[in-house]
C-alpha cells in the first residue's frame, strides 16, 4: 500500500469504487461543508474537494478535507497548477499529509478566464504531469523536487484527470500513458455522456495495457434540467453531450427524475466496460442526490 487510504484499499481489492465530488463553499464557515458531508456520508469511498473550481475563490480544498476527516469521511484533495508554484505545492502537500489527507488529485486547473477574477495572473510553474512527478518523488524517495530530504515522507495515493472528449482524440490515450508514467495511481475522467466515444477511448486504453496500470474511475454528472444539458453541450469546453440526451431532458416531465435515471443507466453501462474500476459522481450544486444514485445503482453499502 502506498498510502493505505480507503480508496486505495477498495481499488486494490478489485472492488468497484465510488468517489463523489463536493464543492467547497464561498464562505468562511465550516457549517456548509459539514452539512453537505453529512448528507453524503456513506455514499462513496472517498470525496473529492474541488480546488477553486472554474477559477473562483472558495474555501481551500485542504481546509475542507480536514473538516471531512473530522466527520469520519475520506477526502480526495484536488490540487491545481493554476494557483501555486512548486514551492507552495510541495508545502501544501506536506501540510495536507500532516492533517491526514491520503489522496491527492493533480490537475492543470481551469483557466482564470472562466472565473470571477479574470484579471488574475496564473502560475503554471509546473503542469499536472510535472505535479505528479514531484508528488511521487516526495512519496517514493522522501525528497523534495530539489533532492532535499524530508524528515517524514507523505503517504499519497495519486490521482489524475483524463478527458476522452477533448482533442486531439488520438493524443488522449498517449496523455493518459504519460500520467501513468509520471505516477498516477488512479484517474477520474471528465463527465461521460457520449458513451460511444468513451468506449472507443477505453479500447485504446486497453490496447496499450493502461487499464492494468492505473485505476480508471469513469466520471458521471447527473443533469438537473434541460438548460444545464444545453449549457454542458454548448458552453463547457472539452465536453460532448449527444442530442439524444439533450432531447430526453427537454421532453422530460420531471427533468430531475430523468436526470437521475440517465445517470443510473450510465453507471450500469460503465460497470460493464472492461478496465473501468469505479465511478466518480460530480453532482455540481446537487450533492444531496448522490446517496440516492449510488443506492439505486446498486453500489451500496460503501
Amino acid at each position, binding site marked *: 500500500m502506498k498510502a493505505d487510504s480507503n480508496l486505495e484499499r477498495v481499488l486494490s481489492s478489485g472492488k468497484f469504487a465510488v468517489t463523489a465530488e463536493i464543492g467547497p463553499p464561498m464562505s468562511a464557515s465550516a457549517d456548509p461543508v459539514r452539512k453537505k458531508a453529512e448528507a453524503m456520508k456513506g455514499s462513496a469511498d472517498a470525496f473529492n474537494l474541488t480546488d477553486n473550481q472554474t477559477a473562483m475563490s472558495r474555501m481551500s480544498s485542504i481546509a475542507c478535507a480536514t473538516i471531512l476527516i473530522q466527520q469520519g469521511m475520506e477526502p480526495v484533495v484536488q490540487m491545481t497548477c493554476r494557483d501555486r508554484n512548486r514551492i507552495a505545492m510541495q508545502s501544501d502537500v506536506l501540510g495536507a499529509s500532516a492533517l491526514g489527507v491520503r489522496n491527492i488529485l493533480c490537475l492543470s486547473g481551469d483557466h482564470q*478566464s472562466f472565473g470571477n477574477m479574470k484579471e488574475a495572473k496564473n502560475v503554471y*510553474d509546473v503542469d499536472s504531469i*510535472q505535479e505528479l512527478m514531484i508528488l511521487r518523488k516526495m512519496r517514493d524517495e522522501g525528497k523534495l523536487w530539489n533532492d532535499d530530504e524530508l524528515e517524514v515522507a507523505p503517504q499519497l495515493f495519486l490521482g489524475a484527470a483524463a478527458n476522452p472528449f477533448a482533442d*486531439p482524440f488520438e*493524443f488522449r490515450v498517449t*496523455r493518459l500513458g504519460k500520467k501513468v508514467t509520471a505516477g498516477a495511481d488512479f484517474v477520474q475522467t471528465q463527465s461521460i455522456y457520449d458513451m460511444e466515444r468513451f468506449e472507443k477511448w477505453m479500447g485504446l486504453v486497453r490496447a496499450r495495457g493502461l487499464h492494468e496500470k492505473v485505476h480508471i474511475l469513469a466520471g458521471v454528472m447527473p443533469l438537473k434540467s434541460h438548460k444545464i444539458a444545453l449549457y454542458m453541450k454548448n458552453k463547457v469546453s*472539452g465536453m460532448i453531450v449527444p442530442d439524444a440526451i439533450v432531447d430526453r431532458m427537454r421532453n422530460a416531465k420531471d427533468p430531475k427524475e430523468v436526470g437521475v435515471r440517465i445517470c443510473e443507466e450510465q453507471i450500469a453501462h460503465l460497470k460493464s466496460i472492461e478496465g473501468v474500476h469505479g465511478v466518480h459522481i460530480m453532482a455540481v450544486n446537487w450533492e444531496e442526490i448522490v446517496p440516492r444514485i449510488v443506492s439505486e445503482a446498486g453500489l451500496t453499502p460503501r
Partner: protein
Amino acid sequence: MIIGEQKPLKEICEILEGHRRILVAGCRSCVAICLAGGEKEVGILAESLRLHSDLRGKGWEIDEVTVERQCEKEWVHDIAPRIEGKDAVLSIACGVGAQTIQAIYPKVRALPGLNTSNMGAPMEPGIFMEKCGGCGDCVIHLTGGICPIVRCAKSLLNGPCGGSQNGKCEIGKDTPCAWEEIHQSLKELGRLDLLEANIPPKDWTPSRSGGPRKIVRPESVIGEAEKLMRGER
C-alpha cells in the same frame, strides 16, 4: 519582433496632463511594422493631440520625431536637439525605447503612449500573433517548432489540457490550441514519438524568475580605457 498597441487617446491625454512642451517620439523598427508607433502613427497621434489641445485649451506644444531604433542609445542621442526645451517625451516605441529615452535624458519625463504586448509576428494584414515567451531556454525542438510557453494559455509542457476542443483553446474560440498545433506539426514531421516522453518541471531561472536578464558577450565587451579612447558617449 515586438508587438505593441497604442494606448487609447483618452488615456494618453490623462498621462500628458500637467505637461506643456511635448515631443511625440516614434520608432521605425518593430512598432512601425505592427502599425502602432512608426512615422505615420507619430504624425496622426501628434495631430490628434494638437486638436485635443486646441479644443480643450490645454496649450500643448506638440513636436514630433521618429527614431530609427529607439532601443539603441546611439540613435536616441541624435535627437538631443529635439528634446531641448521639452518637458515630456511621449514615446510610442516599445517599453525598451521609452526607457532608453528616459535613461539618456534623465531631466525630461518619458511617458508611455504605447502598450508593449509581446514578441510575435504579422499573420495577415492587420493581424499580429504572439509567438515567443522569451523563457530563455527554448524547447521548440521538442514541440514541432511551436512555443508552448506562450502559445498555450497555461504554458503546459506535456500536452493539451482537457479544455482543448476542435482545435481551439478553452479560453475562447478565437484562440487556437497550441498543443493541437504541436500535435499536427509533429505528425507532419513524423515525430509523434516526441510527445510520449514526459518533460520534467522547467528551470525558470533563465526566464523572468531569475530576475532581470543580462546577456554578456565577452568578445564584444570593451574596457574603460578603450571606451575613453573611442570617445564613448
